[in-house]
């Protein structure tokens, strides 16, 4: 019997064909059962079974390799994601630092070009607001008597630090070193940092952390920078170097400004009386006339001389003369308005420029000055000095001229007449 004859009669053909279909359609676990005959059909089934086993094993290896590869890809992807995250953090950090450096540089430039302390304070405030947008803080400077530090400029929504405090109440000022607190619950804190009442019922909570950076130049403390972070507003722990760098720039700028202001003050003020000097008067007289012309205002001018001043010097000595000049200077600074310009013209002669004062008003003020000076008690070495009197000339713009020369001559002539007419009087220019 041929194979063809066998197959047409043997039902195992269908089983073998079904097995082939199963395996080729992907069912690699499909197996046939050979009969006991051990003929060609059984050989085919056995061969198919073996083929299925081989393919299944190969597929298993491929699947395992694929699973391993997928696992490795997953691991590498996770590693890559972590590395990317770290890189992003690093880049953000670098960008933030770069931005901080730029802002720090800008602050430095603005501070260097500040002409007054107020300008510098405004720059400091703006710089801190830009660099620490969600933080509050203040610049404290010693008051004139140097017993208290007081806020000169502050920024932010809340401030837990007192408006005034002594050096002893601040750890940074006590030690002369930047002082940082990251956890107010556990750390030693400055006494000027306290919970403050906002209203009768509500309190500004204590900050989460703060930095005090002292401003010290050549051993002398000028003040301190205070910066705080509210609970939930992020830590200041990484910002210490930046605050340190800022405080250094601020310290240098304020020291320079103070020096400039001192020099400027020295150059325009008479050291004995504290009044402006002749140089300053020459600079401002023309400017005040121009302003009066521009604004359509009047300008009063008073020039006076201390009567018989030479006799004080001759009889009581130059020390007594200096005392009189000093006392008179103090008196004038107290009596005249901030916008009035009070100058020691030279020797015992004084020159006053009164912006926006009419001739009539200027004369009245001159008369009241003369009367008040006569009441002044002046002491020298514990001894009451004789009362002084003044010879006073009065002129005004535009009544007596439109320029410095004409007006100065007019008031000088009026003073001369006051002296000639017997002193201790007020004479208005003609």
């Amino acid at each position: 019997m041929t194979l063809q004859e066998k197959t047409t009669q043997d039902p195992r053909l269908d089983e073998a064909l079904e097995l082939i279909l199963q395996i080729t359609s992907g069912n690699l676990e499909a197996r046939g059962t050979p009969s006991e005959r051990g003929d060609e059909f059984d050989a085919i089934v056995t061969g198919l079974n073996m083929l299925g086993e081989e393919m299944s094993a190969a597929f298993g290896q491929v699947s395992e390799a694929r699973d391993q590869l997928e696992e490795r890809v997953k691991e590498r992807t996770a590693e890559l994601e972590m590395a990317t995250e770290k890189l992003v953090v690093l880049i953000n950090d670098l960008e933030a630092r770069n931005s901080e450096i730029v802002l720090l540089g800008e602050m430095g430039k603005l501070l260097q070009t500040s002409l007054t302390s107020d300008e510098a304070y405004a720059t400091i405030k703006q710089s801190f607001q830009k660099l620490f947008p969600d933080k509050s803080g203040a610049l404290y400077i010693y008051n004139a008597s140097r017993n208290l530090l007081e806020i000169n400029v502050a920024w932010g929504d809340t401030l837990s630090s007192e408006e005034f405090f002594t050096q002893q109440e601040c750890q940074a000022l006590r030690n002369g070193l930047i002082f940082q607190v990251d956890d107010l619950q556990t750390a030693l804190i400055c006494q000027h940092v306290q919970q403050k009442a906002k209203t009768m019922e509500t309190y500004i909570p204590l900050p989460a952390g703060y930095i005090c950076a002292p401003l010290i130049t050549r051993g002398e403390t000028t003040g301190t920078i205070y910066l705080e972070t509210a609970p939930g507003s992020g830590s200041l722990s990484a910002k210490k170097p930046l605050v340190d760098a800022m405080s250094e720039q601020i310290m240098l700028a304020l020291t320079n400004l103070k020096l400039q202001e001192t020099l400027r003050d020295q150059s325009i003020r008479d050291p004995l009386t504290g009044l402006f000097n002749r140089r300053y008067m020459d600079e401002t007289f023309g400017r005040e006339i121009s302003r009066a012309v521009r604004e359509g205002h009047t300008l009063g001018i008073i020039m006076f001389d201390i009567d018989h001043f030479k006799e004080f010097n001759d009889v009581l000595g130059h020390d007594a003369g200096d005392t009189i000049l000093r006392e008179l200077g103090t008196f004038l600074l107290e009596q005249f308005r901030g916008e009035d310009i009070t100058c020691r013209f030279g020797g015992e002669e004084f020159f006053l420029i009164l912006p926006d004062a009419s001739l009539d008003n200027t004369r009245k003020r001159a008369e009241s000055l003369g009367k008040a000076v006569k009441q002044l008690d002046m002491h020298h070495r514990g001894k009451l000095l004789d009362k002084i009197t003044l010879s006073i000339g009065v002129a005004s713009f535009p009544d007596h001229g439109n320029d410095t020369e004409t007006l100065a001559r007019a008031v000088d002539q009026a003073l001369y007449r006051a002296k000639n007419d017997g002193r201790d009087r007020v004479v208005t220019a003609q």
Partner: protein
Amino acid sequence: MVMDNHIGETRTRVAKIWLREDGIVQMVVDHQAKYTLADTKEGLACIVKVSKGKRRPLLADARNLKTMDFAGRQESAAFKDVMSVAILIDSAVSRMIGNVFLATQKTTFPVRLFTSETAAVEWLKEFLQ
């Protein structure tokens, strides 16, 4: 393993194995034997034993073999303590098993299929010279 007719013959569950006088190890698989991994391991251990510490040619009479599972085939192909293997086949099933084995397994030894025992022995003897 059970000792049988030939000198030094050893029996496993599905085969008998002995060392012939010409130095060839012979194995004869029982009628309708279904060779599993365990049978393979037992057979290979037996071959090592009868080889007496030498690598020898193996005449594997698989004419009566009915099936041999995948793990068994892999284990056989990886066997190292044999010089060469001649597989005797004649039935349709044993031919199929022998041919699929050769086609799918990478053996560590020379292997050929024979339908004549004489030709198989002649070929194996070449390895003894």
